[in-house]
């Protein structure tokens, strides 16, 4: 199975994603640069975390306009599974493949910590079969992870089951105190209407090996592998 990881100048979790794909999952990973017009026939596309273009304008804003995004859009519109992680999520909202926007954390500071996530929707290739009974423990590391969408959009997301992950406490309750960044409705991840494009602020690639203190993130990668094989 082929995973393409899209790398923008300033992406810094691109190699972490490659590592999960090849060293942990044992699948094929290809790194594709921002200037590429071709993704190399992938089965799955990952948009990694980091600070594309320094995040100097808005997070993900400049990357969303990079040449490679045309190919990502084609792949997504063709139903291919796309996962945007952290900066990748920001890129997906900036280019309109996902609704809403990500703003400055409510606490104003960068937050790097483990959080708990409830899995709300299993209708995406990255969550199919992922257990909903217990929350997942996954790290976040971002300065601008506060999910915003207007009331109508939010109602639509909730109504259509497009909210995929919510910040929760260890018992799986989406408590406001468990929200690390002030996101509306504790939203940590969403998908598009078709369900094939998923964006999330937490970093599943950072908890896919026991050595790093957790393996819940691996469930997402295993899920997409299961769906495609």
């Amino acid at each position, binding site marked *: 199975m082929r995973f393409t990881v899209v790398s923008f*100048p*300033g992406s*810094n*979790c691109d*190699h*972490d994603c490659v*590592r*999960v794909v090849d060293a942990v999952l044992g699948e094929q990973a290809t790194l594709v640069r921002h200037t590429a017009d071709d993704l190399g026939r992938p089965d799955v596309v990952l948009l990694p*975390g*980091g*600070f594309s*273009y*320094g*995040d*100097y304008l808005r997070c993900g804003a400049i990357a969303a306009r990079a040449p490679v995004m045309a190919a990502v859009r084609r792949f997504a519109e063709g139903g291919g599974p796309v996962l945007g992680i952290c900066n990748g999520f920001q890129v997906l909202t900036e280019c309109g493949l996902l609704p809403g926007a990500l703003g400055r954390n409510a606490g104003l*500071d*960068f*937050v*790097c*910590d483990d959080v708990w996530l409830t899995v709300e929707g299993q209708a995406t290739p990255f969550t199919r079969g992922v257990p909903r009974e217990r929350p997942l423990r996954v*790290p976040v*590391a971002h*300065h601008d992870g506060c999910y915003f969408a207007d009331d109508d959009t939010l109602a639509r997301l909730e109504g259509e089951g497009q909210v995929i992950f919510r910040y929760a406490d260890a018992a799986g309750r989406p408590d406001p105190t468990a929200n690390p960044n002030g996101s509306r409705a504790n939203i940590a991840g969403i998908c598009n209407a078709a369900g094939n494009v998923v964006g999330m602020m937490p*970093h599943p*690639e*950072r908890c896919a*090996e*026991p*050595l*790093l*203190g957790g393996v819940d993130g691996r469930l997402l990668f295993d899920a997409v592998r299961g769906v495609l094989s």
Partner: protein
Amino acid sequence: MTPTPPYSPEVIRQHGLTPDEYARVEALLGRAPTWPELGVFSVMWSEHCAYKSSRVHLRRLPTKGARVIQGPGENAGVVDAGDGWAVVFKMESHNHPSFIEPYQGAATGVGGILRDVFTMGARPIALLNALRFGRPDHPRTPYLVKGVVGGIGGYGNCVGVPTVGGDASFDACYDGNILVNAFALGVARADRIFLGRAEGVGNPVFYVGSKTGRDGIHGATMASEEFGAGSEAKRPTVQVGDPFTEKLLIEASLEVMGADLLAGVQDMGAAGLTSSSCEMASRAGSGLVLDLDRVPMRETGMTPYELLLSESQERMLMVCKRGREDELLAIVRRWDLDVCEVGRVTDSGRFVCRWHGEVVVDVPVGALVDEAPCYDRPRTEPPPPTPLADADLPPMADAGADLRALLATPTIGSKRWIYRQYDHMVQTGTVIRPGAGDAAVVRLPETPRGVAMSVDCNGRYCALDPYAGAGLAVVESALNVACVGARPVAVTDCLNFASPERPAVMGAFAAAIDGIAAACAALETPVVSGNVSLYNETEGRGIHPTPMIGMVGLMDDAAAAVGSAFPAEGLAVVVLGDAPPALGGSAWLGLHGDALRGLPPRLDPDGARKVVDTLLAAHDAGLVESAHDVSEGGLAVALAECTFAHGVGVAADLSAGEGGLPARLFGEAIGTVVVATADRDALLALAQRRGVTAWFVGPTGGDRVVITVDERRVVDASVADLRAAWEGALPAVVAARAPVSGGGA
């Protein structure tokens, strides 16, 4: 108009040169220096570049060892990590810029230390930082803390190098002079280390990275004739960090090095183009000619003087192998960086700069480097510390209350508020995160091995006894590394002191060097890189001597790394080591008045070595479930800290301890370790075989911290309550609102 000689005494003074030094400049040149030459001498002969007050003493540090691939003298130290891998690391100060502009000062400190590491061909995989702030209630402290932490995070997070640990404490002596010491570590193949040498006559020299502006040009220029009244816009400006460009520079540099295109390379750090060029030429015994007008410039009207002295960030000087220029250009341009051929390596032994064809600098490299002043400044022996009489000890009314109060001081309290703002997991290699163990552990890419790192220094001990205090910083950092299960292998340092022109400061400096040397020798941890920061004082008030130590350790199996907190109930808690508890300079003394009294902990390098070896043997035997060294706040604080992460309490009986109650509980026995083990008998037997004192203090379990002495329950507190005090310490300091626009994107 460019000033011309003769220069007024005032101008010479502004360039940091004494009349004697200036006379030597003229003698070496056989003429008066041109204006740009004066600038070049000014920076090359500065304390920062020439180590003129410290050099004679630094020679006493042990720098050799079986694992050392590169000791001091290059951009960073290099140590063999096994299987053909090397770790490359260094620590550096950015104290003054961080006091002026905390966000950018700290950020550019991180950028600078990263360049020192990747310039050697190593990919940076970890950052640490050691911070010293003034009193928690000083009006400027919250602003400085927020700015510095924001800047470190802002830079490190963006470049994608995890900040995995550090050290932070608060003391009135840093009110007017904070310390921001940044440490970086990278990995490289041991046979692919790059050196800062301008090798190969005729090789082209390339400037790579950001354009040059008037950033950070030293203060001398501010008052010099070059800036007439009203030339506000030309004022030298604060250095601004551009971590995005740094990230590109890392990737481009490593790619260029990987393609074997370079004969030498060096980052432009302090004193920018001047020091990078001269140091490279000096190390190679070559010369350089530069065409300054070709340097990519950010502003209009820049002069040769400014170009030579600018400290614009994110720039490198690369000596390309002749014939490989196009490959270099292609790589660097693909990373969207400015690049320009600015000169050539010569065999003249001279540093020559041209400006539109005209020679404006022509100086023997030796005059700038080898002939730089070197002083053995007058010094006075540090007075021996005086023991505290029992009568001088404050009475201890309530040990439980004291324990809680100590945990609530920001120096001892949790540093979570800090490291939560640092991406400590990027690169997916962090095995022991900040807060989880006594040292950070990061896996060495492509191997099962781990590298452990810790930075430490207790300035109060150093103020009382610089020899012991500096040695104890080595001991503490070595123990921290051993606690997680790694063998300490080498040291980098950052020696922060007040003015070397004061004999007492110089005496302390010399003594600190000897203390470090003694401890490093016993532990077989040579010093492979470091930095000296002098003149840390405001209005004649100096900081405590603060020789920060960064210790690096190695372990074969990163997965075997152990945390500091009790992981489970029913384990046996054993204290390893016989260092006597000391109250001199202790946090407990500080709780009840002036801490700067009495005898600090004793330095026993050989004893420390035995504890390190025993601890590592215990790790190898699988006898260590957790390990935490005793430091500020003593044994009681160490025990309490061990209960927080997993909420597992402890019942400790300290009757076998030494001294009165305060000493037993809060005496700082540097060199002892709290170990939790599942096999108490085996651990005690192992220690005994190795001649190391070990005593069982009690079992883990419950949800309270209970300490008894001679059948008296002196502490009985809930873990949750103590933890709340400990976690609240730093947030309370920064709760005071600070200016918002002090920097940051």
